[in-house]
């Protein structure tokens, strides 16, 4: 049985199901309990699970991350909500210097099972400090896994897998996707494995490689391209670390052309890493240089037209695909 629900509700279901299944799972963060979450992802959890398992915190990011990780050091499974990735910068010491390294530094004695959830992304005119995409900061760090779902079914299945995983997972939700709807299986054992990319639309002429909200733009671009007789394949990376290089490479070997669409900045961004993997593993198959469409390298402006100008668009993806396939 499948249901059509929002990305937000899919996340909420994942949390509920995992909290029912495992009493060691708890939620902690700013306004997660009484307020129901800044983006309402945790709505109703307080009523079902009580204040002992749904814990409101002061605005103290280092303590939020640290208490979650400390509880994980002795075996609990926290789901830490950072509200937005921008605020996680205040907790980087706990995430990077502690969470990511505790297992290794202890010679494998510690197991840190923790999910650190945060909304990221731009498009709501929130200005420079509230619109960032910082996935590459975390992807850089050994000991972390990084997940960024684009559709409700993946949001649910990946979050459930992340909660069951025995590692530290940075779980990135896109703030514009919370209201987006899609089919989601009702099965409580519906899991999407971490570290596995998915071809969301098969095609033969060009690979559009993306994740999170930009993936949804790629899907729309692929439809328009189909109308113009260009058969694009869309690859949803979904897990940014560990990166499923094989699925990406297989797609490029089929299409011989790759366009990476990302909402982070181009310099040392996710697209740079994906490009490098393609060049390292399947350079000979390429018929054209890899293209990257990314956020303009500026702090995000507030004004709506400027914000839209900074972000990659469907039109840009379509025209890039036309260019790379020589059908401009």
């Amino acid at each position: 049985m499948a249901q059509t629900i929002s990305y937000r509700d899919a996340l909420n279901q994942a949390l509920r199901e995992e909290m029912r299944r495992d009493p060691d799972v708890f939620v902690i963060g700013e306004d997660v309990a009484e307020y129901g979450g800044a983006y309402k992802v945790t709505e109703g959890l307080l009523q079902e699970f009580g204040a002992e398992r749904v814990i409101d915190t002061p605005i103290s990011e280092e303590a939020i991350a640290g208490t979650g990780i400390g509880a994980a050091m002795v075996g609990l499974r926290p789901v830490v909500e950072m509200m937005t990735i921008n605020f996680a910068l205040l907790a980087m010491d706990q995430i990077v210097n502690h969470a990511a390294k505790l297992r290794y530094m202890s010679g494998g004695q510690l197991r840190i099972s923790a999910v650190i959830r945060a909304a990221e992304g731009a498009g709501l005119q929130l200005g420079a400090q509230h619109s960032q995409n910082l996935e590459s900061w975390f992807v850089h760090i050994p000991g972390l896994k990084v997940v960024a779902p684009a559709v409700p079914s993946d949001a649910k299945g990946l979050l459930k897998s992340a909660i069951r995983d025995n590692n530290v997972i940075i779980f990135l939700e896109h703030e514009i996707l919370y209201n987006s709807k899609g089919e989601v299986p009702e099965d409580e054992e519906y899991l999407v494995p971490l570290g596995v990319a998915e071809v969301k639309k098969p095609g033969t002429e060009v690979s559009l490689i993306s994740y999170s909200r930009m993936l949804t733009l790629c899907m729309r671009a692929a439809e328009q391209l189909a109308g113009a007789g260009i058969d694009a394949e869309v690859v949803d990376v979904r897990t940014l670390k560990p990166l499923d290089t094989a699925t990406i490479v297989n797609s490029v070997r089929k299409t011989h052309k790759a366009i990476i669409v990302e909402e982070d900045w181009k310099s040392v961004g996710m697209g740079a890493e994906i490009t490098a993997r393609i060049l390292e593993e399947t350079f000979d198959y390429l018929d054209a240089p890899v293209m990257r469409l990314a956020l303009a390298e500026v702090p995000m402006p507030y004004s709506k037209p400027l914000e839209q100008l900074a972000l990659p668009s469907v039109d840009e993806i379509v025209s890039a695909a036309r260019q790379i396939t020589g059908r401009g």
Partner: protein
Amino acid sequence: MTVEQERLIHTKEELLEMYHQMVLIRAFEEKAAEMYTKGKIGGFLHLYSGQEAVGVGFISVLREDDYVVGAYREHGQCIAKGTDPKYVMAELFGKATGVSKGKGGSMHMFNVKKGFLGGHGIVGGGMPLAAGVGLAIKYRKTDQVCVCFFGDGAVNEGAFHEALNVVALWSLPVIYVLENNMYAMGTAVYRASSIPDLIRRASCYDIEREQVDGMDVLAVREVAERAVRKAREDKEPRFVEAITYRFRGHSVADPATYRTKEEVEEWRKRDPILRMENYLKDNRMVTDDDIEATRAEVDARIQEAVDFAESSPFPAPDALYEDVYA
């Protein structure tokens, strides 16, 4: 009950055990310094010599299932929590038999089975983690406690204030023990804190606080008993400032030119081990021969630790990628 009366409660065995632990830790640290100069130990090496009474006094009142979170001057605390010194020495040597399989080093000793949860090298970084351990204790409704050691440098970190606020707010059984050895690396307390009386830095969180002479293991133990009992029974945090002194530099590489010889000599007169020896002798619990015997036994044990570390293998190349993920 007076302090003296309370001290009488300790059995002779408990007193001798604390004395023995301090002698063991001192011998361990001095041997580690020697091994460092011989090139057997790399990286940073922060020694506990002079501060033994704080770790030993506190840990002596803990149960095996209680937790300790240390900072980066933690070899002695790891030993006091029940770790055989040979595994700590092997860790310093970077050997596969070390407590952290040779991948942690001096600043990252862990013995999770004994409740010793590190070994953290970022100033103040262990404090939020200890709050999390306290949160887990509360979550599971057990009567364990978590003791978190940190230095005077940490009071100027945001983590200090965030952690104290949440343990007080949520009534978590965490005892924060400030080991004030007067210097954050080379910076004297009065040059770094707007209020040099550091116990006051914790005063706005409404956590019960006590100050103790950290060079007197009996005084530390007395305060520790109160703090741990309170934390365990009332499910409340406590804050203790132990005034102490490190006899060596910040690390072995530090000649400590920011302190005068006179100052160091003054503090050495208050050596917690000598003080305990005198106490034990005055109370006719030990003779000079007993002390001699203890030192000989400890020296032999430390030599065994060095031999064990020396003869242990380095980690195999495969270990490089092990335990990054579970």
